[in-house]
């Protein structure tokens, strides 16, 4: 059972239907208690960082997530703002604390090449670590859909499993143990996105 966290931000519907389309059992988690039913968790997100953290806190999700992810070891997939929330802090609209699961900060996209527009909107290809189970069965440089103005700048490269090029390499996906996250939207990336979601569902924590 996949549990999608609904904290009032993010296109829950699209994520829900995407899992439905790949014939997964999926449910919406409106409150922390619902997490108990989920074997795997998805944290979507669209909008502003500070609202995201505030809503998660107000919904009582912060502790429940900590419990599920670090104590129970449930696999979690963060998407877009959901990935950024996992950072130490973000500089969007001031400085705000994140969940602190990943050693990195969320900073504004400022490509030195002025022809590169912000937000980074559209399909961009990623280079990924072939060992990472999220990308199994995908061709060498698959395109995914990105739409963001801020990105997760990791302290070091160990957590980064995929990058995309936008003036310079940007973090496209991270993985640490049972924590997965993507800057791009797999639920908006058609066939390759669906494959990635399938891979997330099938991932077994043996590594």
């Amino acid at each position: 059972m996949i549990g999608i966290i609904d904290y009032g931000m993010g296109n829950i519907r699209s994520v829900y239907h995407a899992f439905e389309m790949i014939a997964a059992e999926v449910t919406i988690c409106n409150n922390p208690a619902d997490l108990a039913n989920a074997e795997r968790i998805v944290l979507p997100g669209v909008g502003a960082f500070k609202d995201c953290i505030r809503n998660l806190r107000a919904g009582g999700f912060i502790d429940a997530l900590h419990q599920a992810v670090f104590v129970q070891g449930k696999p979690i997939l963060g998407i877009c703002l959901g990935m950024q929330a996992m950072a130490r802090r973000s500089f969007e609209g001031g400085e705000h604390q994140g969940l602190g699961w990943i050693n990195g900060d969320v900073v504004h996209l400022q490509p030195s090449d002025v022809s590169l527009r912000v937000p980074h909107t559209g399909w961009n290809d990623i280079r990924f670590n072939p060992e990472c189970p999220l990308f199994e069965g995908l061709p060498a440089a698959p395109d995914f859909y990105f739409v963001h103005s801020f990105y997760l700048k990791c302290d070091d490269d160990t957590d980064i499993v995929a990058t995309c090029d936008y003036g310079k390499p940007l973090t496209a996906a991270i993985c640490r143990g049972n924590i997965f996250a993507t800057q791009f939207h797999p639920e908006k990336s058609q066939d390759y996105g669906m494959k990635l979601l399938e891979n997330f569902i099938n991932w077994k924590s043996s590594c």
Partner: protein
Amino acid sequence: MLKRRLIPKLQIKQTRNGTKPRMVLVTTIRFEDFIEIGDPISQAKIYEAQAADELIFLDLDAALQERAILTELVSRIAEEIFMPITVGGGIRCNEDFRQLLSSGADKVSINTAAVEDPDLIRRSSDSFGTQCVVLSIDYRANGNGTNQVYIKGGRVKTDMDPVRWAVEGERRGAGEILLTCIDRDGTRLGLDLQVIREVAKEVSIPVVASGGCGLASHFVDGFIEAGADAVAAGTYFCFKDENPMQTRSQILNAGIPIRLHS
């Protein structure tokens, strides 16, 4: 590398045929002369299968109807379509944004309401993020080398120039510009490259160009000559043996970075 985008434009309207009310997809010519060409859900699924990069849905009856029709359509589409969707047509306030975004739309396009109440751009981008706000600009040529922005589906002339309005829209918080040349809409004569180029030069947000594609080479021109980030086409795929996958190959063969289908 970021790819250019190919975006089918789907315009919906109440049908003129038959006894049952039904929303159908139409193409337009210069914003008049509607031709009914299909069912919105069916066509959305087709474009999904053909790996279009995004879809734009415009409710042309929006003045007459509430957002309920569009919201319902978006909900049904979200069940089977897994690519970004922009929705527009009669959007007037943040509540409209909220309804559509939570039904499954990724971006909401505002046109008349933004001209009548420019603060809406700031309010909506503050609430939902700039990436959700598309400023849709329709314009016609004046005949003396200048252009004019029109609202209310091309029926009411404003005193604004499309390039200046695009710049102001960005300043106020829009995340993308959807630029449509009414004179070329549905004519299949090619895009209005000059104006697109000017807008693309003046703004630093993505520009989606629309109005006039009739050949694959028109798309190529829009990307190379005019510097558009994306080209939207309403008529192009409907009356020819062409589909996004074929067009995409032709664009690739011209050396433009565009996603090769899944």
